[in-house]
């Protein structure tokens, strides 16, 4: 079975990073907007990546 290398990287990355992120989020106290900051960060990253991506791949 073949799995995309990027997918493996993402799964491994998510596995390592999720506890840290979740911990930071739940320790937020009154900073209720913390999950939204992470989310916004992901959107900006995705925007930045897709801008430079070779669109012919699709």
């Amino acid at each position, binding site marked *: *079975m*073949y*799995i*995309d290398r*990027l*997918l493996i990287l*993402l799964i491994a990355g998510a596995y390592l990073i999720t506890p840290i992120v*979740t911990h930071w*989020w*739940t320790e*937020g*106290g*009154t900073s*209720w907007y913390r*999950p*939204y900051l992470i*989310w*916004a960060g*992901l*959107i*900006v990253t*995705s*925007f930045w990546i*897709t801008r430079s*991506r*070779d*669109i012919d*791949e*699709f």
Partner: protein
Amino acid sequence: MNFSVAELSLVGATYLLTLFLIAYATEKGIIPHRISRHPSIYILSLGVYCSAWAVYGSVGFAYENGYNFLSYYLGIAGAFLIAPITLAPFLRLAHTYKLNSLPDLFAFRYRSKLAGASAAFFLTLGLIPLLALQIQAVAQSVSLLNNSLNENTIALAFCILIMLFTSMYGGHSKGGRSKKHEGLVAAIAFETIVKVIVMLIVGAYAVFSVFDGPQDLQNWLDSNPAALEMLYEPLDNGPWRSLILTFFAAAIVMPHMYQMTFTESTNPRSLLPASWGFPLILFLIALCIPPILWAGIKLQTPGPPEYYTLAITLAGDSRLTPLIAFVGGLSASSGIIIVVTLALSEMCLNHLAIPMYKPSMGRFSIGWVKFSKRLLMAAIILASFGFYVALENRLDLSQLGTISYTATLNFVPGILGLLFWNKANRQGVISGLAVGFVLWLIHFFWPAATHTQASTTLAITLADIFDEDIVYMGGFIVIAGNAITFIVVSLLTRTSEEEQRAAEICALDTRQQSSQWELSVSSASDFTPCLTPQIGALMAQREVEQALSELKLDPDEQRAYALIRLRDRVETNLSSFLGPSIAQDIMDQTIPYKQKSESGKSEDIHRMESRMEAYRHKLSGLAAELDSLRRFHRQTLEDLPIGMFSISEDEKIQAWNKAMEALTGHSSEQLIGMRINSMKQPWKTFLIDFIRGESDYSPQATINIDEKTLELSLHKAAIGKQNAAETSSQVIVVEDLTELRLLESELTHSERLASIGRLAAGVAHEVGNPVTGIACLAQNIQYDTENKDLLDTADQILEQTNRITRIVQSLVNFSHSGEVSHAEHCPVNMHECVTEAIDLLRLGASGKSYDYHNDLPDNLQVMGDAQRLLQVFVNLLGNAQDASSHASKINIYSEGDSHSVIIHVEDEGEGIPDALQDQIFEPFVTTKDPGEGTGLGLSLVYSIIEDHYGHISVTSPVNPETGKGNRFSITLPASEQLNLP
């Protein structure tokens, strides 16, 4: 605050009418395509995901489950953030094979009508609670605005309204090849804008009207830590990860998402901006949920928290804000109902109605399709309404949503198998779905419909063991039961050949595609007769012609890979018209695949290479290096200056290099994959004779092409042949020797001339001495006698010896013709040269009576040896004299440019016979009577002109009408001092 029925009806009807007008304007082209097909419209249309759960249900879910509410948004946002990995493979499949729904995908991959039908049935059943959720949201929100109305009446009115509206969209479906609903996409995009704006308005209302701005909200949170704690607490123990995965899968398994993401996509590249655009839409909506929740708590709003979005606005003074919030909820509910109903009706039509009803081809009218679809739409909406009524409002929105989302999780094992597991088969997927749905009915659907607890012994036991919520354990049992059945049954049963092939197409790993398949037909022309019994002659012909024109293939196409492409295209086109199940059936019955015989497996080199070329940018490391090596070897063969081609065991052409293209005029694109016997004559016979012949080498083969003879040398060798008995591919090398043979012939000619020269020199030397002796003796006789008869005899001897001497002198001159040094060349005035030659000829007995016209310019010069050029003109003009009658004209004139000079010597004598014209410059060839010419004159001229880097040709007759006149044309390189008139 209470709103009248008229107010609410007006708002609702106006909103739905606006939607219809947008759809209509888009369909009619009033809204330009550059707008309606803009990627942003596609991204906005994905907002159909945000149903009443997003607008109302999430607030209630946040109230109950804290930050777990974010999973609804983050799950699907995650799927889109990594869209190139998660969604692109489905988009590729959906676009290439026109798979318009999840059942299409299942029917295509698992090659089973039953798999498609099961998927369509279970999906419809599973989505009923989600549709009921929307109906409940609209009914309850209206009753919040007007508490005198009966909720069931509102729900029914809403259902009727939405049924009419949806059937209008269904009516717009062309029923033909195109399954795109541009109008619907535009309308849903508009709905998303409305939803986002409404949520931002209500969120801003909560922050700035209920609270006095963000600071006040923060202060309130500081003073009410319980409000924050209720968000954080469920995160620790709640089913956070399971929910994320459930909503992650929704991107593919939810029919409205499949419809918008894949089926309605006009440009696959729009998926890239959607990977951040759609999460942004979700982000904006989700951002408003906590402030709305806290505003509701602060205001101690009565009623269920899930309607805080509407209820908090009712606490204010404005009558507009509640209506705006109501439109937001209406928009969310109506959008998803329209798209889900449309998608479900299409899949029910294609996978349930048509296969069960089995209408003949003639009854497949667009009217029948539209009517059936409308009927199905109505049935789905009414079933949802029935489920809503049966529920009696006992379940909140998020509970209803959970039932549907759990049902759609049943498709995840089948989808994972589709992408990653080639052994997955139809028996596995159908039994997995059946088991999963039975478990779902037991744990979710039935308890909801009959007002009982979802508490099987197994669920209770597992919930106790893992200390988890019983609903969560129910979901786990459903998915685990499905997955285990799917895997076990797939492993225990046989995967059919058609499934193996479909698995190769669907597999993410293109390296697994072994293309071990070929068709039962051998030519594109066989397609129409094969299809005719199933779909009729007219339709068969139309479909095949359309597929051929789309693929730009020849009607007599024979290449295996091209035929496979043609079959796939015909199936795809039929699928868009009749649905994939019927299309597959037709194709499997008429033009089935068969596994390649062992002997035919080596032939698809070209297909293999095409796939590697397409996959190339994904290779790295050793694989990329191997690919570079492959390309290098291929390029070497391509650029080889000698013709090379290879054929498979069954004589199909596998490689055809550029030299072969130049030699034969057949391009590699035309030939690769074709059998060698499909080539045009004379190459066909020529190559087949050699390929099938016993000899591996043919050094002197000739072939006539357009009246030109090519001389070729051919070699062949078997590729990887282990023993003599084995058949294998062959490589054939074809070398064009035509020019080499021409050079060899010229060399032979020169050699012959040289040997004649040597012979002539020898003969001259040997004959000269005795002739000189004879002449001396004859002269002695003249001095020694007065006898008249003897003197006459002596004169005759001298005359004959002189003649012999002249002949000998000619031979000597000829033999010395090639020994002149080019260093002696100097500018020669051609006018003077010709004049001198004329003067010399006039000294002869007959020379005076000819009319010479030396029209050469006075300053015409060429580089050369003056004496030898004089010899040329003496010979040419002498010949002209001999050929011409007395007093006739002999013209010498010239033409040329800065590079060359052409001097013509033209007479009016008898023409040279055609048969002799090619040999006229050969030694000892003459047109004169025997004894009058040696046949060396023109040969000498030829040699001298060649020595001067020139060229001589003859035109005879000059006047075709009279058949008279000869023109010798000498082309010489021009001297630097040349000055033409």
